[in-house]
């Protein structure tokens, strides 16, 4: 009954000398970074799909799309399809990485690591924040890679290096609501397959009925309506406005702010609201899940 007992008075508890909120964030951030590095297949495949899209779409639709672009009033002028598409691919990356967030959480729930984390004194907010930051870093790195590849393929970032950074920022801002959504689905279903299916089911069709791949005005009326209510449109439009340094938004005709801001202000506004709404829902779901289903 020696030294272990000496530290066990109720008041002192166990020494937890060096922990702070930031420590807890860092601990979880590093844990998920290690996780990503040790699962190269996941990282590579989540990068591969957008890159394949980038190559296929520019090769297959390049000619047709360029025609559609030049016929479009909003985007009048010479705009290569590569330049048009790269911002959409950046947003697609944000979608794919964010959708894997819930999968990681379900993994943790299924393996019991989630519960193990909850029983430690770590801040629960910090646990999720650390994990989210790790995913955002992945988005940043992957978007940078795609922007580089796009430039190699002939895309032009008209707003320069600053613009490239801003596109990364848009991708991050865009990813947050979907990241929250993915975690909500994960916590509600607690099932990996459902989480994957929910993310994929939403992600791919939504990409097609948005401004991602073709100008909205060139699509049927009903798709234009869907695109207006599709969050992806706003992520893509914000990134694209920065890419081409012009007002590209078709779904809303805003003229109050002048130039590129006619796109950025409404698009970023929509994203911020979406982030807040889904963020609050996610916090609510997490709080419920971590306090368990007892009366």
């Amino acid at each position: 009954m020696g030294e272990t007992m000496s530290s066990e008075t109720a008041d002192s508890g166990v020494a937890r000398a060096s922990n702070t909120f930031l420590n807890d964030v860092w601990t979880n951030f590093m844990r998920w970074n290690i996780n990503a590095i040790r699962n190269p297949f996941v990282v590579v495949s989540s990068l591969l799909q957008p890159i394949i899209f980038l190559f296929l779409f520019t090769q297959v639709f390049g000619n047709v799309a360029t025609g559609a672009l030049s016929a479009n009033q909003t985007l009048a002028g010479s705009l290569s399809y590569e330049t048009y598409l790269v911002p959409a691919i950046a947003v697609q990356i944000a979608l794919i990485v964010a959708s894997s967030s819930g999968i990681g959480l379900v993994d943790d729930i299924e393996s019991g690591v989630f519960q193990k984390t909850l029983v430690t004194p770590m801040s629960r907010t910090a646990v999720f924040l650390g994990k989210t930051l790790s995913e955002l870093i992945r988005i940043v790195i992957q978007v940078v890679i795609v922007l580089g590849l796009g430039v190699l393929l002939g895309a032009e970032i008209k707003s320069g290096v600053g613009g490239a950074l801003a596109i990364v920022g848009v991708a991050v801002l865009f990813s947050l609501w979907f990241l929250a959504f993915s975690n909500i689905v994960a916590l509600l279903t607690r099932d990996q397959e459902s989480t994957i299916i929910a993310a994929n089911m939403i992600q791919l069709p939504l990409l097609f009925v948005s401004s991602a791949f073709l100008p909205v005005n060139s699509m049927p009326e009903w798709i234009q309506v869907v695109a207006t209510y599709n969050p992806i449109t706003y992520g893509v439009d914000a990134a694209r406005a920065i890419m081409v340094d012009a007002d590209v938004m078709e779904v809303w005709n805003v003229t109050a702010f002048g130039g590129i801001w006619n796109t950025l202000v409404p698009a970023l506004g929509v994203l911020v609201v979406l982030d807040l709404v889904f963020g609050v829902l996610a916090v609510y779901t997490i709080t419920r899940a971590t306090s368990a289903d007892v009366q």
Partner: protein
Amino acid sequence: MTESDATGRAIETDDLRVTYSDGTEAVRGVSLSVPRGEFFGFLGPNGAGKTTTIKTLATLLRPTSGSVRVNGFDVESEPGKVRESIGYMAQETSVITEMTARENLRFACDAYGVPRGERSDRIAELLDLVDLADVADKRAEGFSGGMQKRLDAAMALVHRPPLVFLDEPTTGLDPKARNRLWEYFEAINDDGTTIFLTTQYLEEADYLCDRLSVILGGEIVAEGSPADLKREVGGEVLDVALEDGSSARERAADIVREDGLFPGDPTVEITDGGISVTSRDARQHGPDLLVALRDAGITVTGFNVRSPTLDDVFLAITGEHIDEELPDEAVADGTTTEGDRGTPATDGGNDEQ
């Protein structure tokens, strides 16, 4: 031992009730008092409310009513303090498989805020304790079930918690791995750590625990040391092995019941290979039974008088058997036992999910 804590108790619950949102009353008025340093066993079949209780003690579930104090802290108003002062090993092995054993322990050190200067020594010490030092830098995904369990146990100990919860820690392990874990648990208990262990293995409770509570249907049905509980059965057990089939066993049981060989009210039970008779005078009157059986033309192939096991205790208390199945048998098919064991207690909870 430090007794500055007003209660001097590691665990104190009063009329703890936990009702799930679907209305299932998993725990129905459990009062426990576990002194510091004790190796306490919480014994019961699947679905009896063990896991719900342990999760409530470990702040993973909130009590529906009743009070719970762990290491002197209230689980509802001071969950952070409770978490800092306990180690918890869940029923399902939970290690981060992408990480090495050392990284898992480092993560646990970070999570529990073990002072940086102490981490390396603490990790080395725990790797030694659970015999994983030679695979410390290998990823846990390649570990056997037993190795992962040991790592899991070590992760619960990084902060030298004065109280450790072990929820069916040896389920699914082979006997060798189980025995090794038992040694670690005994070692940390010898160092003064209070241990709260749930188990459905009677042998485990008997071997490890100073004191036991038996839970069934969310209520405690018996308490005491393993020896106390055995005494409750009242008497000794005479096991008689018979050569013939089930009809011989039935006839033998009838002879015990009807011939008045044993004074008082002996209980007789038909077992796989014969019958078991529990009576205060089993030793004295056993030979009479053997003669009676021979006269009835029933061949006796063996007999043994023994003191009761916890299984007998369970039978005496609840009228139900717990199969005294060891982990090595359970591992073959962990689910098949659920139905027959769980049935009498399913009204008690869905906590094992």
